[in-house]
């Protein structure tokens, strides 16, 4: 059991847990939380890979750059989703997704 495997496996576990959360939780905020953590799980995996790829103590910078990009993208999407969710809540009072016609 190496450091690489521990973190890679926990990344896998986090991803799966978050997927479960997205499917079963109906509160919008929980879904957004789950999605955000799902992103963290992927980033964790990438950073683990970077660590694995190290040469002479220098970790692979490409996954690092990917994660940095990913974090900004994730926070952008999260913040936008939150803005939408809050607007929706202010308009309807709902905290879960409803369609007007009730379909899907």
């Amino acid at each position, binding site marked *: 059991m190496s450091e690489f495997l521990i973190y890679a496996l926990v990344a896998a576990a986090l991803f799966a847990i978050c997927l*479960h959360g997205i499917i079963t939780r109906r509160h919008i905020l929980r879904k957004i939380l789950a999605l955000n953590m799902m992103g963290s799980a992927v980033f964790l995996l990438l950073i683990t890979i970077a660590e694995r790829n190290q040469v002479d103590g220098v970790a692979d910078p490409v996954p690092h750059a990917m994660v940095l990009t990913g974090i900004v993208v994730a926070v952008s999407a999260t913040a936008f989703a939150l803005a939408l969710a809050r607007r929706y*809540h202010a308009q309807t009072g709902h905290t879960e997704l409803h369609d007007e016609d009730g379909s899907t």
Partner: protein
Amino acid sequence: MTIDLLFDSILALTLAWLCWRVLSAPDLFKAVVLFIAFGLLMALAWVRLNAPDIALAEAAIGAGLTGALMLDAAGQMTGRSFPYFRKPEPAEQEVDHGEP
């Protein structure tokens, strides 16, 4: 080495547990606070993984900023403002108008 591995294992398990708690804690505020903790611990893990600058970004953006946004949103949606973000009265009343 083994101490490092032990630390890593504990950190990893804590992350998984926190993740689960964020999704299942009955109190939404608590969930968001746990989410921030999750982000900070994640940053810690990344420091362990030789990625200090990414850890910095995660702490500032992933945990801090996202956490603040989440807290604010949770405040609106539960109808109860997180103390620090309390807003003046008229605005707060408007928050509640849609609550079913």
